[in-house]
């Protein structure tokens, strides 16, 4: 009965590879997010989708492409992985976009290590 789940939990790969991280929420939320947390624990938003529509796209390299097949899923595909992509990636969801007081529910994170 996990609320926000991510797979895989750990991902170790070589530079230049392409990889995907999957996220699913069973909370019935409309809005989903991807965050990147670096080694200093700084958490930065990357993307946000509301009902499958991209609404936030921070200055993230084009190598990162989110995809939302339905409002319960938000996947992150990364092309040509670089060393600097090593981080923990968190998926999150919240109830509804235009509600002003929205708490976010986070997944357990995916630790990506690029060698």
């Amino acid at each position, binding site marked *: 009965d996990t609320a926000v789940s991510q797979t895989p939990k750990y991902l170790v790969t070589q530079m230049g590879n392409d990889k995907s991280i999957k996220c699913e929420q069973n909370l019935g939320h409309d809005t989903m997010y991807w965050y990147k947390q670096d080694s200093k*624990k700084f958490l*930065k938003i990357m993307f946000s989708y509301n009902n499958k529509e991209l609404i936030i796209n921070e200055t993230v390299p084009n190598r990162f492409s989110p995809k939302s097949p339905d409002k319960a899923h938000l996947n992150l595909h990364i092309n040509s992985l670089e060393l600097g992509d090593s981080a923990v990636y968190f998926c999150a969801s919240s109830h509804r976009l*235009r509600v002003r007081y929205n*708490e*976010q529910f986070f997944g357990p994170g995916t630790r990506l290590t690029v060698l």
Partner: protein
Amino acid sequence: SQQGEEDPQALSIQEGENATMNCSYKTSINNLQWYRQNSGRGLVHLILIRSNEREKHSGRLRVTLDTSKKSSSLLITASRAADTASYFCATDASTGTYKYIFGTGTRLKVLA
């Protein structure tokens, strides 16, 4: 940027003591939230305080908000070893961008 900043960066206290951590931000907000992150885990929402509120309580947590100083504090009373975690504040801009900016976090260690 609107990035919040927590201080102290790290805090170590004995079980039973109170822990206070502060968050400062840069622009007007609709609300401010506090989250906890246990090691190796995702963030968990603790409490939300609206811009028109000055103080809020939830169990052993007390949050204050001073919009004139653009700052908030989180007080954990009678701390327990299980409170050991990183604590983050998150603010949303009142300009309607619908995104939250997280602070740099305070790492709290409660010694048994």
